[in-house]
């Protein structure tokens, strides 16, 4: 009885001492919603790692991940304020900007495009000029695969090839026509379709648009101009935590896969690992720090979009992105 009383009084004392301790003024964590480009998968591993490793919490941010999908307009979500940040490709940012939606890219996560054109190895098609007279499944379905068509045309233009000599058919995510030979060339993502094809044991020739001067950033992190001007500190903190997560992800992609599996819709470790391995060189190019962006790449992308008349009217490309936060986080050092 006496022991219990004693323990109880000690507990009370401890509580009193703790309560009397000058509490650090800790504000409630700021809530941030991140709109992902697609369903949960290894493509967004860095965000999960940042969450799991507590980097967001360390910045006093509480992040909610919003999944993307076929019918989800990411631009709309961010612009309307349903989400604070969005993961989306530059062409959408340009399009939004062009239509007056104030979106700005703050970092490029995928600094190489995952878009790759594939042909069967035995077809002899090894470069874009070999596309002449062949069938290419590159036509946009009117959804998120706009980048296939975009890069295809940009590549043709760059190489001085006439697209009319190439038969284009709509892109088929099942690649049925490609498998049965009715379509000779199909675009796909190296982080998606390519893995499936290789899992089938197909021998393929890969034609990378980046080998022909088409440099596109892929998944980029964007937010509204309003958030940038009103809460620049929040943007910095969110980006800093995100980049740390991505850094961890590329430094130990197996661990990143493990984390991803907690979120992924398709909790297939083999698939997620393959996806992760495929995207590593896209995120970590071996040149600059994770997320870093280059003016000339943005200008190149803008130029291509302008040439393809995908922009209604010219505008200042430098408004579509900002290096301000990357500079702040990395101290202005690209490497």
């Amino acid at each position, binding site marked *: 009885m006496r022991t219990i009383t004693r323990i109880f009084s000690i507990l009370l004392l401890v509580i009193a001492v703790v309560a009397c301790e000058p509490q650090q003024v800790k504000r409630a964590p700021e809530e941030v919603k991140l709109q992902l480009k697609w369903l949960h998968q290894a493509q967004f591993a860095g965000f999960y790692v940042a969450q799991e490793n507590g980097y967001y919490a360390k910045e006093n941010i509480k992040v909610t991940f919003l999944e993307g999908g076929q019918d989800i307009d990411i631009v709309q979500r961010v612009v309307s304020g349903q989400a604070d940040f969005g993961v989306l490709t530059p062409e959408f940012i340009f399009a939004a900007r062009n239509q007056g939606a104030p979106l700005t890219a703050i970092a490029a996560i995928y600094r190489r495009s995952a878009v790759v054109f594939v042909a069967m190895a035995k077809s002899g098609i090894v*470069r874009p000029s070999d596309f002449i007279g062949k069938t290419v499944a590159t036509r946009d379905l009117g959804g998120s695969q706009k980048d296939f068509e975009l890069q295809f045309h940009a590549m043709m233009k760059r*190489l001085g090839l006439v697209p009319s000599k190439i038969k284009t058919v709509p892109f088929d995510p099942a690649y049925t026509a490609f498998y049965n030979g009715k379509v000779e060339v199909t675009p796909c993502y190296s982080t998606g379709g390519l893995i499936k094809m290789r899992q089938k044991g197909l021998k393929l020739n890969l034609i990378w648009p*980046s080998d*022909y*001067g088409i440099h596109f950033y892929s998944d980029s992190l964007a937010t509204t101009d309003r958030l940038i001007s009103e809460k620049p500190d929040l943007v910095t903190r969110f980006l800093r935590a995100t980049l740390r997560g991505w850094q961890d992800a590329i*430094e130990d*992609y197996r661990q990143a896969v493990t984390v991803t599996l907690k979120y992924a819709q398709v909790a297939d470790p083999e698939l997620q690992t393959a996806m992760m391995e495929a995207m590593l060189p896209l995120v*970590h190019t071996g040149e600059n720090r994770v997320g870093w962006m280059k003016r000339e790449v943005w200008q190149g992308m803008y130029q291509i979009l302008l040439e393809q008349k995908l922009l209604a009217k010219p505008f200042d490309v430098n408004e579509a992105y900002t290096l301000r936060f990357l500079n702040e986080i990395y101290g202005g050092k690209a490497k």
Partner: protein
Amino acid sequence: MKLAPKLTILFLLLAIVPTAIIGYLAYENGSRTIVQETIDHLVSINIFKSNEVKRWIKEDERSIEELAQRPLVKEFAAVLAKHDNFDSAYHKAKGSLIEDHLNPRLKYGLVLELFVMCPRHGLISASTNEKQEGKYRDTYPYFSEGKSRTYIQGIYYSSVLEQPAMTISTPIKDKQGNLMGVMAGHLDLGELSKIIALQSGKSPTEDTYLVNTFNFFVTEPRFGQGYALKKAVRTEGVEAGLSGKDGVGFYKDYRGVPVIGAYKWLPDFNMCIITEIDQAEAFAPVVGLARVITGIASAISILAGLLGFFFARTITRPVQQLAAGAEKIGGGNLEHRVGTESKDEIGGLSRAFDRMTESLKATMVSRDELEQRVRDRTAQLEAANKELEAFSYSVSHDLRAPLRSIDGFSQALLEDYFDKIDEQGKDYLHRVRAASQRMAQLIDDVLNLSRVTRSEMRFEKIDLGTLVSKIRKELQERQPDRKVEFAISSGLVGRGDARLLRIVLENLLGNAWKFTGKHPLAKIEFGVTHVGHGHDKPVFYVRDDGAGFDMAYVDKLFVPFQRLHASAEFPGTGIGLATVQRIIHRHGGRVWAEGEVEKGATFYFTLP
């Protein structure tokens, strides 16, 4: 604590402390040497391998530079650079370049692919890998840098090769120094891996690898697969190496295993080389050394402990035997001997102890004999005494009958023949009667004396003062005309047989009465004194101021039948004081006398 454990611990301490100190010093010294050797080895591996890598790259560089400086290559490059339209001259130049210059060089095995880029857009115009032709390399450092100098693009992930790659490029310039193209080659990293993975010995954990400035593995470490450019490493050694330092450290490696690692920054390649060895392996000889030292130290300690125990036993066993022997002898067993062969001090002590026991035994035996003899003699004496007493009693008794006849008939003669006997005859008869009566008195006294020694004693507390007063009364009644002053201390109590003590006091007071008879005024004292005798027992005394005696004859005072005065002067048989002495002696007391002629005598006695 007992002696044996004390000695054992002392020996142990004496052994452990120096061996521990020496062992520690030896271990410190040995382990430092071993660790230093390991460190030197790791550092030398780093130096050796980085030199090998440098040599290998230099060789590749020279090989590619040599190609780029060939006049024909320059000519072909100029054709390829100038002609945008793919005419026959273009194809011829390209074919000759590949067939005559690039392809043969591939056979050396230094490079995987050799190619030439046009100076304007980095277009690959000729390549040993036909599939690469037509690609643009304008964004690649090996093109932009290679336009002006020989450039090594460190190890990067090539999405074309889908593997890590290293590319060396160099400008192709015409005689005027105009840029005609950039010659480049992807190096065979297998060679690099071979150099790095080269094992210098049989070490199972020695591990060398390269790490780039992004903390990524550049070559596969020994204990990882698919790490090259796919996994980052942020160990202490890597961080130190990447910060441009050369050195050695003790830290945990990429597996989390503690290692000794040597790191070296390679400024030419923007990489660091790391060589590590598991601490477990590196320290194995140290651990072995420690084991040996500990083993030796333990052996010495055990030996010392055993020796200590043994010595302690050699010392304590005789002591224990001695103690056990003393215990037995003390318990009465005088036959026991400790008995030791030992020559040391304790052996001496044991032998001395045995000798002591021996002489003690002899003493005890002689004492027993003496006692027995005393008992025998006492018995003999008692028997003789009894006989004597019986004899004297019967003699005394038997003597009385004739004496009574002598006295009776002498009286009859005096009475019946009173008239017929003349005066002289009557005088003679009177003398006969007196002599016979005196003899009867003597016999009575002798009988009394023998009774005193024979009779049973009953001890009790006796008020001596009262007894003395009673005797005084009797004496006064017998001679009422005498004037004697008595001084009797009251409350004097003694322990003894009432009847015998009465005899003592009757004799002493009777004597005092008798020997003061010639003084018209006499004084008799009875009292107690403690002084003058040396012990605490009360000393009673009877003092008179009568005739006294000469102290020269004090010895004869208590001898039977010895008299210091003529019986005519003071009548008596000479038995009284002998009786007194016997009674006091039977009580265990002492009796003695002091006196002076005509000044009186004092008789002292003590009682138990």
